[in-house]
């Protein structure tokens, strides 16, 4: 992995409505931070896609487009990692109970690939149940891990 700039950035925090437009806002913010962190084109695309999928999940599955519920997102470069968190105010869910979208019996399902894509594109993915709601944290390492 090519090392990139260790420059930090202020945490960018957003509170948004549960709409498709909010997905675009979060994706744009992730794109800017990824570019400023020095990630290459492919890595930026992966980070943007992960942010997009996380935001879609929060809007569609978490808050179910409920205008009374908000999405809280934050994006931060702490010098060694780009950290994106997205929280909804929904019912919560068990990420370990999700069907494997790559299993033959699930390949032709119309849904269920979002979290798989997030896990494929980011280095760390964590879920925290907020009761109510779920907080998703996605991490992209910016420098090789020193062992």
């Amino acid at each position: 992995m090519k090392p990139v700039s260790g420059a930090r950035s202020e945490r960018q925090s957003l509170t948004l409505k549960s709409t498709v437009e909010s997905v675009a806002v979060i994706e744009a913010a992730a794109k800017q931070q990824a570019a400023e962190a020095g990630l290459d084109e492919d890595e930026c695309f992966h980070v943007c896609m992960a942010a997009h999928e996380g935001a879609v999940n929060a809007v569609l599955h978490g808050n179910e487009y409920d205008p009374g519920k908000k999405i809280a997102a934050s994006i931060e470069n702490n010098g060694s990692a780009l950290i994106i968190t997205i929280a909804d105010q929904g019912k919560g869910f068990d990420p370990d109970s999700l069907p494997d979208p790559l299993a033959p019996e699930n390949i032709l399902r119309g849904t269920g690939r979002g979290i798989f894509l997030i896990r494929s594109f980011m280095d760390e993915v964590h879920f925290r149940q907020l009761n109510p709601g779920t907080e998703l944290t996605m991490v992209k390492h910016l420098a090789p891990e020193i062992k």
Partner: protein
Amino acid sequence: MALTIASREVDGVTVLDLSGRITLGEGSVQLRDAIRGLISKGQKSILLNLAEVNYIDSSGLGELVSAFTTAKNQQADVKLLNLTKKVHDLLQLTKLYTVFDIKDDEASAIASFK
């Protein structure tokens, strides 16, 4: 960039030239409506030209899969043409590359429906 869809007929095959993003919301709904509309009118051969599609999210992938299964259930066929590298990689990652019949040349794609 929203999704735009242009339709043309070539040797009995409906080619849908897609441009933009196939994502949750308007884009994926447009695609769904376009394909279902064609199938409901009895079109059996549909070729999706993805040369100008630079982004598909999981919802868009779901719509492609739904289009494929809807077509199969109606004895119709949906094939994909001219995948960009990003879309190609996405289909490989999700193992959908083996589901679809994917072409990189329009003439041979049209011929394959016969």
